[in-house]
């Protein structure tokens, strides 16, 4: 009914030229058009953070952004964290501390944690808790998640 709009966006390092419906969110386009289902759909009101992605290295809730708004930007989803077969230090740390539990919130937690560590490479526990306040875990595995981020901050320097 409305015209699709062309956008150019870099997703996990790959340049894409796609057509999007103006009323489709970034979340919908990532999952349904690009098949990147690591980013989760959950509350759809910006409360839970399961849909967190990076837009130009800044964390956002992709359910609260129209896909047309990312025209000209670079988007990183959880699929973009690992380098080939080598997991990101955060992903290794989540595995080590047993932070994953059911796993549903984890893509959002990982991406939000990456944004946090990019800004504060050595955060305090309080800074981690505050930085991840927009990411809910219904398993309530917050203890292990915070531990994982602190562990990744310690080990991340050594990682390439």
């Amino acid at each position: 009914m409305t015209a699709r709009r062309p956008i150019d966006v870099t997703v996990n390092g790959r340049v894409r030229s796609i057509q999007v419906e103006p009323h489709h969110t970034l979340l919908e386009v990532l999952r349904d058009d690009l098949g990147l289902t690591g980013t989760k759909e959950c509350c759809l009101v910006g409360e839970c953070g399961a849909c967190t992605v990076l837009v130009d290295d800044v964390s956002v809730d992709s359910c609260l952004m129209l896909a047309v708004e990312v025209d000209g930007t670079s988007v990183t989803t959880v699929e973009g964290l690992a380098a080939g077969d080598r997991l990101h230090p955060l992903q290794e740390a989540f595995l080590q501390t047993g932070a994953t539990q059911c796993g549903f919130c984890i893509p959002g937690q990982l991406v939000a944690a990456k944004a946090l560590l990019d800004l504060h490479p050595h955060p305090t526990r309080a800074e981690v808790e505050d930085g991840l306040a927009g990411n809910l875990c219904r398993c309530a595995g917050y203890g292990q998640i915070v531990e994982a981020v602190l562990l990744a901050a310690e080990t991340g320097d050594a990682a390439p």
Partner: protein
Amino acid sequence: MRAFAYERPTRLDDAIALLTEQGADARLLAGGTDLIIRLRDGSIRPRTVVDLKRIVELDAEIRDGEGGLTIGARTVMTDIAADERVRHDYEALAEGAAVVGSAQIRNRATLAGNICNASPAADTAPALLVYGATVVATGPAGMRRIPIDAFFVRSGVTTIGVGELVTAIELTRPAARQGAVHVRRTRRRGHDLASVTLACAVRADGVTRLAYGSLGPRPVLVTDETGLLADPAAADTAKMRRLEELFFGALPSARSMRASPEYRLAMLRVLGLRAVATAVARLAAGSPQA
């Protein structure tokens, strides 16, 4: 989400023309953290969404002018909370911006959007009220400046007219030294809407300004010119009585699920007294970081 036309004007005049022509059928998109929720739940059904992020006259800058700071319409909460000038001269605003939503929300949500959305619980509104901020708006009749206290009407309603949009928010440099703070009460620590949100600024000349939100249809500013609240030696019981007088207009909704009206009124006084104490201490310390 229902389909709509998407417009991304690059010039302010084009945006104003669109808004003037379409009236209530057009909605402005800045950060989208409120708008997209309402588009999805169907509470608004605009024909056109006008994205203002490519308008060259609107920026995301915080500018130092002779009279104070000017915050561009596209400036997001993260940048306001982190700005050294805001933290130094308008500490309550930096603190209010720092608790809006989550990091993800603060990376998108703009100050202009927060006030235009006009939620009674907006965490930046009390600080803007105590600092006497000015809203700069441009429309078909040109540019005008609206004192923030004359901007809010009720939930979702401001004095912005058809075809007008907010281009910046101005903060006048305080004439006298002051100590200020933002405090709030939420159901849980972290990401939540406020049951009470409040800012207080105490000036060296003894004038205390308090503004509170989430206790009525719009955020409210009250002023104590007696000098009592600013007096470090005055008893808390006397200050509490004064606060009760000042807060007579608080009218919390009985329908809100976040907190009962009785609880909100009680917490308003408690937070008011705490905020006064902190602001007085910060004024005495002469340092915003105290």
